[in-house]
């Protein structure tokens, strides 16, 4: 689980593990498969932590699954930034560095915006305390994983 979540964080944080850099980018199919597996694991963690009633689960899961679908697109874009970083790492040009920064911020911004968008949707269906819990869980998971992911990304030369 930990390895999967760390890999997930690598996508979320737009980092690239050194092994990834050494090997070149993962294939697109591998990345898609990995994101799907990670999202399945994450869903289980979220549901277990929130301890929703049956009625709340009925309200929560369709919205959460929609959130996961949208987030998957963001993660896929994130993996493309990683590929770009890996491809340019050995001979990073100024233009490539500019592009990577721009893409990085766009994906980070979209990730934050998605959490906010779905927190608002969830607030229409669930008690605010549960929505606050969900945002806290998302933040805790992302924060834990971002650190490990970022630490494994070499600093640009």
């Amino acid at each position: 689980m930990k390895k999967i979540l760390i890999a997930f964080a690598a996508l979320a944080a737009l980092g690239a593990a050194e092994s990834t850099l050494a090997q070149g980018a993962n294939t697109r199919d591998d990345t898609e498969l990995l994101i799907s597996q990670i999202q399945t694991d994450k869903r289980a963690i979220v549901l277990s932590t929130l301890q929703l009633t049956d009625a709340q689960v009925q309200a929560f899961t369709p919205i959460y699954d929609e959130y996961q679908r949208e987030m998957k697109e963001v993660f896929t874009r994130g993996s493309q930034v990683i590929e770009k970083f890996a491809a340019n790492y050995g001979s990073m040009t100024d233009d490539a560095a500019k592009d990577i920064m721009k893409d990085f911020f766009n994906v980070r911004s979209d990730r934050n915006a998605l959490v906010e968008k779905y927190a608002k949707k969830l607030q229409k269906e669930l008690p605010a305390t549960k929505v606050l819990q969900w945002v806290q869980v998302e933040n805790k998971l992302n924060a834990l994983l971002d650190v490990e992911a970022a630490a494994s990304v070499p600093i640009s030369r």
Partner: protein
Amino acid sequence: MRFGPLAIALLVTALSPAVQAQDAGLAADEQILLKQISTNKKAVYAANLGLTEEESAKFWPIYDEYEAKQKPLQDRFLANLNTFAEKYDTLSEDDAAAVLKEKMAIEKEGAALKQKYTAKIAKALPPKKALRYAQLETRVQNLVQRDVYSLIPLAR
């Protein structure tokens, strides 16, 4: 309910320690510690960015301005956290909604501020050095967020 406010303050301060260190109400030892964190963070950037004198002259004023602009957000973060801590045992739905709204607003404004100042730095420095700065800043923020979030219990 207390979440170790000094520990949180110290962690948050890692994002803007120079300004935070001047806050009233902290004991002298704590202010020394905060100043040390500030010095350390700047030393990390100075050591890792490899700036020339000309680049340094452009970079540090922008960076200091960025740190100063973060201060009000950090104050709001701590105020929101204090509200959450004070009401933790009897948190109402309205309280939770208000804490959540403020939390998301702070995060959004913080992200926008980071993006704005990284863009400024990218205009002042060669892009590769700006990218390096962005990576370092992200690493620092990741560490701070991880440690801060680990100290805050989930709402109940």
